[in-house]
């Protein structure tokens, strides 16, 4: 193998920084997971293995409630965001260059660039005025806010996938008598599936995870799992929270792994 002229590993202190980063990233998580299996109430002293906190978490009706809300909110928001992001990606890659294309690109990706708190406060004011005007207090606000927030995360992998698709494939389909709709259904869409699935999963994880936006937009009784946990932690820290957080982590890991597997399946 040819030696590369530049190797990051040869920078002084590379090893130390790498180890420090890994420690800071993963040791806290490891501790959290470990103490979710603690038999006692302590977060510092190991008193033996037990599943009691998991049992407590599962028995807790409030936890069940917010978990289900979080899940369906994430599915709804990621689902709608994926559809919109697919259309946006098609609109920004499959038509010739047009005026304002860059502006649209910036608009779609706005949530990536504007601080979440700003979006949160803006939504708070906006939603409050609609609530006053209409009297509607339902979950619609959260679904809409999460959807808007998820769109860029869904958009990026879909667009990336579209950009690697050979335009000649769509031309070949048209050449072989496929109407534009047929070409999309038989060629573009099936080849886009890995991107769409990746976009959905990213959106799902993002929605599941977002605290700030939810905190600002939710009405009473609309806690999601993360906002509920934050509320609980303010009162008392029990290993039950560790258990919930660990389960949450497991779910995220499953989704991220699926994302990885799907996005690796290229060209198939």
């Amino acid at each position, binding site marked *: 193998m040819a030696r590369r002229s530049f190797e990051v590993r040869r920078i002084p202190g590379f090893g130390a920084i790498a180890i420090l980063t890994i420690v800071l990233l993963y040791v806290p998580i490891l501790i959290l997971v470990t103490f979710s299996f603690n038999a006692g109430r302590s977060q510092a002293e190991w008193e033996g293995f037990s599943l009691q906190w998991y049992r407590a978490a599962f028995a807790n009706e409030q936890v069940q409630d917010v978990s289900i809300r979080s899940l369906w909110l994430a599915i709804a928001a990621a689902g709608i965001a994926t559809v919109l992001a697919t259309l946006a990606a098609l609109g920004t890659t499959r038509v010739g260059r047009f005026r304002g294309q860059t502006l649209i690109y910036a608009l779609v990706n706005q949530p990536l660039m504007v601080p979440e708190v700003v979006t949160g406060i803006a939504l708070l004011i906006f939603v409050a005025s609609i609530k006053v005007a209409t009297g509607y207090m339902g979950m619609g606000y959260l679904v809409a806010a999460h959807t808007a927030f998820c769109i860029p995360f869904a958009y990026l992998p879909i667009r990336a996938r579209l950009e690697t698709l*050979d335009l*000649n*494939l769509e*031309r*070949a*389909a*048209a*050449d*072989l*008598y*496929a*109407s534009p709709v*047929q*070409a999309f259904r*038989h*060629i573009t869409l*099936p*080849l886009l599936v890995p991107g769409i699935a990746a976009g959905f999963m990213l959106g799902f994880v993002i929605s599941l995870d977002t605290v700030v936006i939810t905190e600002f937009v939710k009405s009473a009784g609309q806690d999601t799992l993360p906002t509920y946990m934050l509320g609980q932690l303010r009162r008392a820290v029990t290993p039950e929270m560790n258990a919930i957080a660990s389960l949450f982590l497991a779910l995220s890991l499953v989704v991220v792994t699926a994302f990885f597997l799907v996005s690796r399946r290229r*060209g*198939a």
Partner: protein
Amino acid sequence: MKDGSDGTATDAIEIVGLDKVYGQGAGAFRALTGIDLTIRSGEFFTLLGPSGCGKTTLLRVIAGFENPTEGSVRISGEEVAHLGPNKRQVNTVFQNYALFPHMTVAQNIGFGLRMLGRSRTEVAATTAEMLRLVRMEELAQRRPAELSGGQQQRVALARALAPHPRVLLLDEPLSALDLKLRKEMQGELKRLQAETGITFVFVTHDQEEALTMSDRIAVMSAGRILQRGTPHEIYHAPTERFVADFIGDTNFLTVPVVSVEAGAAQVELPGGRTAPARLPEGARPAPGAKVTVVIRPEQARLVPPGEGEMQGEVTSSVFFGTDTHVHARLTDGQDFVLRRQNAGELADPSPGDRIGLALGDGVLRVLKD
């Protein structure tokens, strides 16, 4: 589609006054200029030209992927300007094949017929027939990624042939193949064309491929068609310097005109002898004017000094086995390359040798300016 009122219904493709400009304003680029082209039904027609001359653009206009900026395109007598690619009875073999990666070989081949709404049995029967035609029966269930370049090539061909188009457009279909496979596929293509009777419009930048395969050739350069004709006409009677230079090896000699008759001129060769040279259509140079004549290297013979139409001194000889290329400087200083067939074991002339050059009868051609 079948009215043929203007009597051109037998022409597969008829292009008149075609211009294609990409982009607008300052970034506009004129890719095709004033293309007039008639391709007859059942013909093996080749578009030959260097990279970037507009071959793919012309195919894309015919297929319907690009709209002409100016001019008209007729397919089997029908004006197609308003028709999308899916409404034209023309299929394309793409330069990079563009096989659908998520479909099997058989599904790829059947795609066109399925889109046309043909019955399952017909799709299956035609697919089987096509698989046989391109000798891919065993690999019907493979995905394109599991095929070699030559096999992908065959699938692309079969896919484009399956709906039995009026015209098949082939964009440098052999350029990605190695030499041996390329030769094999050249024969295969000729066979397929003969068996199906479909009009082939074939794009290549390889002059030898064009000469060996085509019924007729159009030579393109910088968005224009410079000359069209049979391989013989293009090779033996090039009318433009570019065509003569692009196809085969050529000697260009600048010579004065002595006299002009109908269709031919007497020109004064280096060394003072005169010889007849055929004029391009419509050209009538004045006596005394300088013109460029072309002679192919194999159209001159090596003869003892003092004999033949021209005299020269050898500058170098290059032995190629079947023939030897003799580079000579003529008496007036112009360079000339002569190709001698090595029918027996002949000694190659050495630099400094004096030689005579004899020209065959009627081999000189005057180029358009």
